[in-house]
């Protein structure tokens, strides 16, 4: 006979890894609170900055837009660089993904090599690549295209490889069974299945690169970012903020456009027109016409971008010749006698990332929840919060950082607040998406028992989405550490200041040291994230 019902456990015994994971999450949370307090982010600071805001607004208005021709040239250059860079990353990522995906790789060595190349591309920040390439190819577009193009492989190649690994192997087997060769198998059995994911990822990366291009302007890549950097350097806030506003508009437009295209991809139209007898080409239905026009427009945009980015093959070849010498400047890593300062600055970077992730999560959880279709109290509220998230996503972090630098003064508070607000764009979206992806049959089952809206949310929606939340917050921390590094470039605190400074005074060995420090930090976060994901699943 078993024990009496009353004596049985009604709560599960805590499991070892579960306790450990909870402890780590609590530790990160505690670290975030401590970091925010230590950085002096409190009500008083915020009140102070309100006063500055009024002051700043005075210096910023009226916005001073450049002449239309100049403005169009700047936008054109930025877009050309970003399109070219994204195209480059796609061209590099497709073969990298085929080699890196477990189901299409020719052998283990190729797979490891491709995986390593992708991880490395992600680990080296685009700003650092830009600093190197500007040294090699000079100021202008080429350095920006190469820097963003190579760095993007870290994300695009990874997502492409994931997409290839998730395909249905059936069509591929069928094509192979028909005697097709390896390339034919990839083109007919794999590519059609992953094409929507490939296009969607490329568009997503385009959005990201558009924001990044502003940052690259601060180290000398042509376009809007360069103009913004020049304006701020001359303390011309009217011009600088006007250009930042233009970037914001471009980013939101790009986000809306790529969002629309991506949604279109998931449900492509089908032709139900009766084919004429003996006809061997699809009929020209409205949907086929539309797709053809889209294709042609895309081709034109790409060609115009390649032309507009003024990529000179000769300059590229010349630059390659000096690449070895230039890279030699970056090795060995040097400390320039300021190692304690570097370490202290790195520590500030960590604190900024932790505090910004905490504040970002505090903002993003409610906003993302209200933006989720299945949780929002009304469709209108949901749409409004979705819109807010898209708008925030559109603002380049750098523009936020500049604004906060002006509001709160140079230093880490500006960086923290900028990242925290920026986090709403990414984390809010991820929270909303994972809430919307829950199994609604479970929600209906709980609702059917007579549960209230809040009860359904608490016992059906949240438990399904919660594991994803933890992953998203860690991802945001990872993103914030990388971003926190870079925001120092505009004086928003942390190690980025030394990165910018060292490259300006040509101490490239110090640049390498900073890079290695940041790399080590990112790796630690990555390892913690991997471990937590394994424990959580």
């Amino acid at each position, binding site marked *: 006979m078993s024990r009496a019902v009353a004596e049985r456990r009604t709560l599960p015994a805590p499991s070892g890894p579960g306790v450990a994971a909870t402890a780590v999450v609590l530790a990160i949370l505690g670290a975030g609170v401590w970091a925010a307090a230590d950085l002096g982010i409190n009500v008083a600071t915020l009140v102070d900055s309100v006063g500055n805001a009024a002051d700043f607004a005075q210096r910023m208005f009226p916005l001073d837009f450049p002449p239309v021709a100049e403005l169009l040239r700047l936008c054109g250059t930025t877009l050309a660089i970003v399109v070219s860079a994204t195209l480059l990353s796609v061209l590099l990522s497709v073969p990298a993904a085929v080699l890196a995906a477990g189901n299409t790789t020719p052998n283990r060595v190729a797979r490891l090599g491709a995986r390593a190349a992708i991880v490395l591309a992600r680990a080296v920040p685009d700003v650092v690549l830009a600093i190197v390439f500007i040294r090699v190819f000079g100021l202008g577009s080429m350095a920006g295209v190469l820097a963003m193009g190579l760095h993007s492989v870290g994300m695009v190649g990874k997502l492409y490889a994931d997409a290839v690994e998730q395909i*249905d192997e*059936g*069509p591929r*087997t*069928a*094509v*192979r*069974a*028909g*005697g*097709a*060769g390896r*390339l*034919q198998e*990839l*083109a*007919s*059995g794999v*590519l*059609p*299945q992953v*094409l*929507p994911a490939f296009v969607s990822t490329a568009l997503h990366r385009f959005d990201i690169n558009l924001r990044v291009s502003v940052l690259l302007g601060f180290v000398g890549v042509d376009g809007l970012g360069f103009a913004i950097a020049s304006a701020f350097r001359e303390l011309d806030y009217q011009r600088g903020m006007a250009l930042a506003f233009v970037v914001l508009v471009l980013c939101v437009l790009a986000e809306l456009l790529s969002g629309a295209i991506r949604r279109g991809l998931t449900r*492509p139209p*089908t*032709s*139900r*027109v*009766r*084919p004429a007898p*003996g006809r*061997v*080409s*699809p*009929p020209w239905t409205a949907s086929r016409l539309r797709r053809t026009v889209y294709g042609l427009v895309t081709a034109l945009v790409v060609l115009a971008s390649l032309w507009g980015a003024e990529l000179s093959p000769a300059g590229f070849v010349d630059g390659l010749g000096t690449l070895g010498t230039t890279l030699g400047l970056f090795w060995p890593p040097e400390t320039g006698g300021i190692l304690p300062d570097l370490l202290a600055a790195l520590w500030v970077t960590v604190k900024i990332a932790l505090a910004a992730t905490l504040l970002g999560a505090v903002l993003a959880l409610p906003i993302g929840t209200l933006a989720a279709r299945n949780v929002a109290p009304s469709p209108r509220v949901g749409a409004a919060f979705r819109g807010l998230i898209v708008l925030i996503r559109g603002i380049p972090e750098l523009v936020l950082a500049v604004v906060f630098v002006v509001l709160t003064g140079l230093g880490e508070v500006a960086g923290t607040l900028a990242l925290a607000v920026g986090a709403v764009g990414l984390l809010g979206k991820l929270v909303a998406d994972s809430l919307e992806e829950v199994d609604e049959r479970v929600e209906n089952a709980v609702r059917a028992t007579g549960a209230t809206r809040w009860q359904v949310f608490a016992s059906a929606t949240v438990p399904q989405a919660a594991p994803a939340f933890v992953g998203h917050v860690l991802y945001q921390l990872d993103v914030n550490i990388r971003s926190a590094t870079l925001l120092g470039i505009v004086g928003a605190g942390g190690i980025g200041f030394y990165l910018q400074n060292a490259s300006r005074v040509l101490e490239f060995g110090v640049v390498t040291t900073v890079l290695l420090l940041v790399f080590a930090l990112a790796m630690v976060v990555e390892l913690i994230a991997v471990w937590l994901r394994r424990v959580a699943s």
Partner: protein
Amino acid sequence: MHDVVTFHRVSKRFGATVALDEVSLSVPEGQIAVLLGLSGSGKSTLLRHVDGLQRASTGSVSVLGTDLATASGTRLRALRRRVGFVFQQFHLVGGLTVLENVCTGALGGLRGPRLGLFTYPKRVRQEALRHLDRVGLTEQAFQRADTLSGGQQQRVAIARALLQRPEILLADEPVASLDPESAGQVMRLLREISAERNLTVLCSLHQVDLALSWGDRVIGLRSGRVVLDRQAAGLGRDEAMAVYSAVASVPAAVA
């Protein structure tokens, strides 16, 4: 009539699992041989050996005069061109049109990768349409494959296999995902095509009744061993059902 497929003492092991155990059989040209057996009895593995998608651990497989144990990659692809394969889950690319899916059957005879209907030569597209006519799906040619019903998708897969102008057609549970009516249509189609082209068909099935009505010959497999091999004509339903019984009571009779 000569044999187009010959298995001689073929065994296939995956780690500790024995998927095929000393299988010997030969299939003459034009015959419809049905494989019966439980899931995991080795039917799919046997079919995949005919196409060289899997290679025997021991023993020899000879198909259309090619010895699969020693065939190079090029020889193997050349052989696969002559052997069509139809799968339980159809294995169509859902996002592509029906016609393009059929056209992929011609890849073995074309050079280079193809993507998009216009990349296939016109004669291939014309022939693909003829095969779609044959399976009764002309009107769906330019629809996305995933808008079709299961039975229709399987007929598309058959049209794709026909585009290879195969001498042997392998069908792995071609009707297991279909309702009885679609299943009957697909089996009738296979039977007719076999008769029209003197096409040898190796087909695995779950249902004894379908096997007895549409097959020339029934081969029963249990745990990778051939436990029944008889002409379908004259084979009793109970005798065929015995393949599924847990006890190995049926002696390995050779037809």
